């Protein structure tokens, strides 16, 4: 059945426009004959939520072994920013270096005064508000076949964490005998964090995230402690920094 004459010309014009539009989607060749390729992002992030689970290991804590996991949930309001929250859980304990140092400690004698060894912080748990800014998006080819898209980002945030301290060299027991237990403390403290990393996309939903981050918080060590009297000495505050390397998977939805 043919359309009425009234509609034939407009319909013909419409179909012709469709044809032209279809032609318009073809590759346009540049002046050098090479195809002009629109280099947009393959993986869009705007308006998506992201859940991530990663494992992290401390890199600069020679006296403490620290290994843990980080769960994160964030929202991407645009392509280069995401804001969210994170929960951190670590297994932390004194390293073999710290235990060897304890084993080599000299016997305590009356009147002997010593300072505590610093940087014995065990970052055991924390919750943070985190923002990531990802100014760089790129891709590279592996073996000329497998294209890997990636993002480079910087992150910053703040929150609170539980920090356990177990002194390497100050005894918790008075007297001059062999030390069976060492001075300890636990506190919840404000923590700032800074870092940076890469996201490697597997596909639109899954990606591998690797990052290096530093947790900054106020800590202290004891000075002028009579080794036979744990109650003596004064705390000397300092800014502690625990740097970690983390890698994990994230899911966009």
């Amino acid at each position, binding site marked *: 059945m043919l359309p009425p004459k009234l509609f034939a010309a407009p319909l*013909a014009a419409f179909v012709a426009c469709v*044809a032209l539009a279809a*032609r318009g989607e073809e590759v346009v060749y540049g002046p050098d004959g090479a195809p002009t*390729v629109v280099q947009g992002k393959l993986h869009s992030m705007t308006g998506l939520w992201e859940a991530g689970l990663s494992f992290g290991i401390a890199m600069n804590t020679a006296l403490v072994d620290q290994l843990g996991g980080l769960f994160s949930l964030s929202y991407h309001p645009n392509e280069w920013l995401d804001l969210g929250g994170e929960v951190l859980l670590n297994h932390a304990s004194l390293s073999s270096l710290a235990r060897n140092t304890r084993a080599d400690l000299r016997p305590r004698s009356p009147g002997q005064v010593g300072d505590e060894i610093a*940087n014995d912080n065990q970052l055991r748990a924390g919750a943070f508000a985190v923002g990531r800014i990802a100014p760089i*998006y790129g*891709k590279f080819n592996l073996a000329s076949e497998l294209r890997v898209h*990636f993002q480079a980002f910087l992150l910053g945030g703040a929150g609170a964490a539980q920090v356990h301290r177990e002194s390497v060299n100050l005894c918790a027991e008075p007297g001059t005998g062999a030390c069976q237990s060492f001075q300890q403390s636990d506190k919840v403290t404000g923590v700032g964090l800074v870092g940076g990393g890469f996201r490697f996309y597997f596909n639109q939903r899954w990606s591998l995230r690797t990052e290096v981050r530093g947790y900054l918080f106020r800590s202290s060590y004891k000075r002028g402690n009579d080794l036979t009297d744990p109650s003596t000495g004064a705390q000397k505050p300092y800014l502690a920094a625990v740097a970690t390397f983390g890698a994990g998977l994230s899911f966009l939805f």
Partner: protein
Amino acid sequence: MRTFLAALLIGGAAAAQQADPDAVRIHVLEQRPFTEAGRWELTFFGSTQVNPKFTMHAGLSAEVAYHLRENLAAQVGLWYFPVSVQSTLSEELLTKARVAPESAEALLVRGAALAGLELMPIYGKLNVFDGKILRLGIYLNGGLGAAKTRLQLRPSTDPGTGRTFGDTGYRPIASLGAGLRVFLSERVTMRLELRDFAYSGYVSRVNGCNHADVVKIEAAEAGGQTATGLSSGCDERAFGAPGTQAQLNAGAAKDLLARPSADVINNLTFQGGVSWLF
């Protein structure tokens, strides 16, 4: 009517072209905007050690590379570490717990020269805030060379001597690295890389003196005398001014030489720099 039929046929043909179910995968080959093969590259780096457990290194380096092929270059580099000292932790352990790392773990690199190869198997591109598109390369490199080493004898907190060092000579060094190059222009490249400098931590002589020599020097200096019967090449005066200073430094060298270890030291260094292609 004929007009309508003609338009319908053209439209149908065009639509059929777009809806072709047999999609053909096309590899778009995009020529690199410039070539590196046959060109020289001069790079200046700032370096810092990233695993500073017992030692801390920071310094500068310069590297010259000739690109034999697009993805392969031969390199020669010089490193100088003006900061090559024991870490804060090492000094804390010494002053607060009276324990010190073995000489192998405390060995310091003052400078190094290495020659090697660099392979850049991965090539890509990136953009910044959806703006300018930059080329990038991911590379691996390796090299062999020699390093000038030393040991720190006294801590910086020692009121009598301050921080002092003993010369432990030259030794072979190898490096393995991986990094990222971002081509800012046809001539200027930014490099970020991680290098593992590996070298033997075996130390048998400090300032040319073996363990027996430093025992003699410590005893002689404590008595206000000069040691006798030292082995060839042993420089007593390199331990400092006669008296207490030489005695303390020789005593520290004696402790470090007492238990020599053949460990291989891995000094992980992060380097960031800018290079110029010509």
